[in-house]
């Protein structure tokens, strides 16, 4: 019986490795799931991109759910996500706030002017400090925040039509059903 142990051990190991291959084909191996799901969003106060004298804060946004989409003019994947947002952002049923991350405001404005602006409003975080409180570590990332200011869903990486249909929209619908 003891002689069979190494073989059994190997079978378990092979199972784990096989799982690894399968898991990798359906998941982004570098994605780090957020610990802030179902926790309150950080209390942010950030200036608008178009009018820095005006600020947008978490308190101001309470009362209805909304999306925050983290993007930047230097971010290649955001360029890939952008057409999807342009096409679908109005169909989400909730406001979409653009979150300009570690970007030069002039570059960001030029980028939006060139590619189009799918957002209801755009806020800017040139230093990236507030983004750390959100657990942002790159762009693009998308957060769904409910009417009480709690983060309910996070997408790491670009939004695709599949992800929107299978994950984002159902999450938004669930929120709508919760609090009329």
């Amino acid at each position, binding site marked *: 019986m003891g002689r069979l142990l190494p*073989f059994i051990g190997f079978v378990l190991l092979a199972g784990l*490795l096989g799982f690894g291959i399968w898991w990798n084909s359906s998941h982004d191996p570098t994605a780090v799931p957020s610990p802030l799901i179902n926790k309150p969003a950080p209390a942010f106060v950030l200036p608008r991109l178009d009018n820095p004298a005006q600020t947008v804060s978490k308190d101001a946004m309470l009362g209805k759910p909304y999306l925050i989409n983290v993007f930047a003019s230097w971010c290649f994947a955001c360029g890939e996500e952008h057409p999807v947002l342009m096409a679908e952002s109005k169909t989400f049923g909730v406001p979409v706030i653009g979150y300009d991350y570690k970007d030069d405001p002039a570059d960001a404005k030029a980028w939006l002017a060139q590619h189009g602006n799918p957002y209801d409003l755009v806020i800017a975080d040139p230093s990236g400090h507030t983004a750390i409180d959100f657990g942002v570590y790159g762009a693009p990332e998308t957060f769904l925040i409910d009417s009480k200011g709690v983060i309910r869903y996070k997408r790491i990486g670009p939004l695709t039509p599949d992800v929107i249909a299978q994950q984002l929209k159902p999450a938004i619908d669930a929120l709508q059903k919760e609090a009329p």
Partner: protein
Amino acid sequence: MTPELGQLALILALLLAIAQSTLPLLGAWRGNRALMAVARPAASGQAVFVALAFAILVWAFLHFDFSVQYVADNSNLQLPWYYRIAAVWGAHEGSMLLWVLILNVWTVALALFSRQLPEVFLARVLGVLGIISTGFLAFILFTSNPFGRLLPMPPDGADLNPVLQDPGMTFHPPVLYMGYVGFSVAFAFSIAALLGGSMEQAWVRWARPWTNAAWAFLSCGIVAGSWWSYAELGWGGWWFWDPVENASFMPWLVGVALIHAQAVTEKRGSLRAWTILLSLFAFSLSLLGTFLVRSGILTSVHAFASDPRRGTFILGFLAVVVGGSLLLYALRAPKVAGGKAFALVSRESAILIGNLMFTVAAAMVMLGTLFPLLGDALNLGKISVGPPYFGLLFPLLMLPVILLLPFGPYLRWGKSDTPVLKQVLVRAGIAALACALLAAFFVQGQLKAIAGVASAVWVGVGVALYIVKRWREMPRGRRYPAEMAGMLLAHAGVAVFLIGVMLSESLSVTRDVRMTPGQVATVGGYQFHFDGVTQTTGPNWQAVQGVVTVTRNGAPVAVMHPQKRTYVHEQVQTESAVDPGITRDLYVALGEPMDPNHVERAWALRLYTKPFIRWIWAGGLFMMLGGFVSAADRRFRVKREAEAAQTITATVQEA
């Protein structure tokens, strides 16, 4: 035209490998001498075609044949010829071809230097090596062909990753593979023994030199990789417990256990099943390492491009080879303990304890490396396992080994008398304590450094005492047989390594500084004087080069030239400046200019002093040397006179 010849050569090699796998094993089973005799020529033929394919790939690189996809991806017109050769194994497809080439090198060597092996046994050994070769050749031809064409042919290629354009990187993969792949010989011997069923210990004697040599190569390869990482990557470190580093370390640890277990089985006939199992483990871990690096399931700086198809193929291959061998072990391993008995205080016990620690260490490294994957599988969340984990548990597990090491040569087989052991304990112990106290005075209470000195002296004095004992007791010419000399060298290497690790880890000083030209920073007792930057060029790069003059107490020590290179395709690479020394390294890395528009003004620099860091690699090289010297012992190659006499008597009796 020529790349297709390479592909053809590989196909022919595969066919020969299939012949080499199936026919001799069939012949050994059936006692058919003609089939068994296929082994050597098939192996030689396969080697010729694999070498041809490899040569064709090298040729394609040397002659800038960008119509071959692999060449275009990994070289360009500016790449110097020596790095074009290194580029052959710089990415996945080529490195697999190198793997198979080296497998053939070992196979041919075995076929040549195996006159004393019984025919049936050799047929089985070569057959098993043939199976492994078949698997890898099939893998190359079906999923990783280096000869694929790129049409239309581009005017210039991409580049070899600048990080790989370094002598260490040229050297590291071939030597590492010699080690990895070399364990296949011990593996094949063990399978042949399991298949053959007769458990005479003689086969272990034949396996020992091959195993020692493979382990020595692996030691060298790991040292080369660590050295390259230190010299090239700009972080001043030499080991990160990165998954791919661990993938090479696990077989090394099991290899240490195996070398010692083989000694026990050869000389005393005991622990036969355990020795066989370790041989299977060592090569299985080599294969596992090959899998981990290419499957993409672990995040690592080192990982080759991942592809689930390739990962699945290798996993399947692993299942057949490793699973099959372990199943064979379960069915055929010796069930009755054989060989001579041994007492609690004996060399066998010490080796057994050492084996335990090395095996648990390998298991610990595997657990830590794979735990993040386990976390995903069991939904435990995303967890990282890094140097704090390995760096705590590994020394703890090695502590018993270090404590036992001086006693090793003094312990007798079977049963040992304690007086001589007590003597060693006292002498080595006092020496260690004395040096520890002395060290404490110099390093201002740094515990790690003191522990390092104590443990190194403990081990080193133990080795020295035994060297003196043999000198006194034995006549010239019989004092240090090669096997023993190798053992002493390797154990001395442990002492050297301990100094290197413990002192450099505890006494290194690192500082990030902002310096304008003319400023001086003091680090670790040395004054680093920044003299601004100049511009310089190389064969395929341009660089900003800093000039740093180092003095100590006013006396000049070195002028160092850290660089930031920009390669052909805009890849930026930091080339750190290292001033090597026996008692310390000085290390300077150039950061960013404070103002990118004014590179003649202030710069950020990272300055290091690293005491005794070279002793780490020196220790590793001593271990390597020990492995090679041991392997060279004539005793392993010559049939024992007693055995020969027995054969004669048996023949006479039959007649």
